[in-house]
């Protein structure tokens, strides 16, 4: 009996046949998920591809990887499962014992020893893996396809072990006593060895038009994360992961998509995985969560505005994902007391397992970030370097401090908050042009923007005492400008939407004007004429495109800052920016294509 109740699944349940044909029995790790059979199906399909598809690594080598990962985590259940598979494939018991103690001491070929070195390091010290580890694999002739296969197999081992801690299934066979040796208690980091510069393997181009998983990701995420792009050398493994993630994350019959994304964010943050923190912050923003709230969940969810129950959910997930040696049945009971049902608890565990899978695989392949992680999180991260520092039941001293971001206005802001009017005057002088451009972009009218500036500045002064430095002063000021502008338009019954359309931005805008432009078009007009042309063209854009184009191409803000200012995800900003630029290009084309006379002639 595991931590969660089980229900009968019926003999026809397809995963039975898959596992029984392979191992001779249906693992209790899967049976323990019977409250949500779709999760069993998802894991079974995924395991089948990872363990049985033949690439550069043999089936026995993969089972050895799974065994070593489980042994290093002290996971008796998962180690016994891998041992059973190895025995079935003819690996003698004494060799399995030797493998668990020291894989270099049982006469394996040097390339496999190197491969297991890499996998064990990845499983126990994921963030310390670096390009030197990959270089060593290459010296033994291990290519990109096999490196991906080894990393995915290791990450599968982590997925299994995370579930094994959360579900505590009984071993199917005789309990195997693991050899003595140090065991890890959480996903750890070795500071001195942090020089990851990826991606470590090449990634041939795959088209979203012909490779279905990419098309699906565009629909579900609004973009194709580098996490998947980096694995195109092994489309089979990539497709299986995309399918697993979709099966776990997209249904909303148990936990909501937002709850699952907050789990992924909080556990990735606890595992110090900046890549995944940045991705999930953006996905949450796409689901309507303000940027500052995402940052706060990454830094310390106890100080976020999540409900008490959802904070308990994250406590549970962080402990399971990051401090697994402390996890017990008490944690399950605590979550039940917080009002969660057993299927919800199960789904939380599976989402956490998926998270740890992704964290490990990202580190193992050195996958480069799609977006910048929140500055406040990156600063806080340096204080969260040991497993015991990571927030769980009680907010630690380190996590109770408000996380300030680097802000060139910090000193002036502090004075202004204390009531110093000169400091406030200097602040608004520094940012008056930014406020003006933001207002102009949203209002679509320069005179109205000038009128609204006073309101924005007075409102900023009125609220500055409550400004907590979780974002830059300029970000905060633009948020006020945005709200004032929208209020102004609403008063005039001029509805405008700058909101996110959940993963559904129009992406089908195609340019019509395809005539060549003249060389050096700027020389055909005076600077003043160019300015007038651009201002007219930008004002003619619909507000949601105009705002992004102005902030990026006129105000030179980063994509991340624009996304924060406007409360959007970075993928949405990118789509709007491209579309806005293309519309502007259409508008300018008649002025810059050959044979076209000056507009004002």
């Amino acid at each position: 009996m595991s931590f969660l109740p089980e229900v009968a699944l019926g003999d026809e349940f397809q995963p039975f046949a898959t596992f029984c044909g392979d191992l001779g029995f249906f693992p209790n790790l899967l049976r323990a998920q019977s409250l949500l059979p779709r999760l069993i199906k998802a894991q079974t399909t995924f395991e089948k591809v990872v363990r049985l598809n033949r690439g550069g690594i043999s089936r026995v080598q993969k089972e050895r990887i799974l065994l070593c990962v489980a042994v290093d985590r002290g996971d008796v259940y998962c180690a016994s499962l891998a041992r059973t598979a190895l025995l079935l494939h003819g690996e003698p018991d004494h060799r399995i014992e030797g493998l668990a103690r020291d894989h270099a001491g049982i006469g394996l070929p040097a390339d496999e020893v190197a491969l297991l070195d890499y996998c064990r390091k990845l499983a126990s010290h994921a963030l310390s893996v670096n390009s030197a580890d990959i270089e060593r694999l290459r010296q033994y002739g291990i290519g990109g396809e096999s490196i991906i296969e080894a990393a995915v197999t290791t990450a599968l081992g982590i997925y299994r072990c995370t579930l094994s801690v959360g579900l505590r299934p009984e071993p199917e066979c005789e309990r195997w006593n693991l050899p003595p040796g140090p065991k890890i208690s959480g996903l750890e980091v070795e500071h001195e060895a942090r020089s990851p510069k990826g991606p470590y393997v090449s990634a041939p181009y795959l088209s979203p038009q012909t490779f279905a998983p990419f098309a699906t990701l565009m629909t579900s995420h609004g973009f194709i994360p580098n996490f998947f792009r980096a694995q195109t050398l092994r489309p089979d493994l990539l497709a299986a992961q995309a399918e697993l993630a979709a099966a776990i994350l997209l249904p909303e019959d148990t936990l909501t998509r937002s709850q699952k994304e907050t789990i992924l964010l909080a556990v990735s943050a606890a595992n110090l995985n900046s890549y995944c923190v940045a991705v999930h912050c953006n996905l949450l923003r796409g689901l309507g969560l303000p940027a500052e709230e995402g940052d706060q969940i990454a830094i310390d969810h106890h100080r976020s505005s999540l409900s008490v129950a959802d904070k308990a959910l994250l406590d549970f997930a962080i402990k399971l994902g990051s401090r697994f040696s402390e996890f017990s049945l008490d944690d399950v009971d605590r979550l039940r007391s917080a009002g969660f049902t057993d299927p919800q608890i199960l789904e939380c565990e599976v989402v956490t397992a998926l998270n740890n899978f992704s964290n490990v695989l990202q580190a193992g392949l050195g996958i480069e970030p799609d977006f910048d992680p929140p500055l406040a999180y990156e600063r806080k991260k340096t204080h969260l370097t040991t497993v015991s520092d990571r927030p769980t039941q009680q907010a630690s001293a380190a996590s109770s401090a408000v996380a300030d971001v680097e802000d060139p206005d910090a000193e002036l802001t502090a004075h202004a908050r204390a009531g110093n009017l000169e400091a406030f005057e200097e602040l608004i002088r520094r940012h008056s042009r930014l406020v003006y451009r933001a207002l102009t972009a949203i209002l679509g009218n320069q005179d109205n923007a000038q009128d609204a500036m006073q309101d924005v500045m007075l409102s900023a002064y009125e609220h500055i005492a409550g400004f907590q430095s979780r974002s830059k002063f300029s970000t905060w000021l633009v948020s006020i400008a945005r709200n004032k502008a929208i209020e102004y338009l609403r008063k005039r019954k001029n509805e405008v939407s700058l909101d996110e359309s959940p993963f559904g931005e129009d992406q089908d805008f195609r340019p019509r004007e395809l005539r060549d432009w003249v060389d050096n078009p700027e020389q055909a007009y005076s600077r003043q004429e160019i300015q007038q042309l651009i201002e007219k063209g930008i004002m003619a854009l619909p507000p949601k495109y105009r705002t992004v184009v102005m902030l990026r191409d006129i105000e030179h803000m980063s994509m991340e800052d624009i996304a924060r200012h406007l409360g959007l995800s970075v993928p949405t900003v990118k789509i709007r920016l491209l579309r806005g630029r293309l519309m502007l290009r259409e508008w300018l084309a008649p002025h810059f294509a050959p044979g076209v006379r000056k507009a004002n002639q």
Partner: protein
Amino acid sequence: MITCDEFFADFGDYIDNRVSPEVRRELELHLSQCRACYVLYDSTCQTVKIVTDSGSFELPENVSESIIGQVMAKLRAGQS
């Protein structure tokens, strides 16, 4: 070679220099052989450059000073 639609799917990231070397190679191969996409690429880059260099939407200094002056006068009046 990739199609024009495939080129267009990565076009935004390409002009912002945010694609992997492998994707860049495919896009540039397409650009070298497709006149229509090249024109689109070239004129979009020109658009971005013209907009970026234009210094548009400057707030005239006298307007800015006048607004700040009015704001500060109101705040000082409120303090006294």
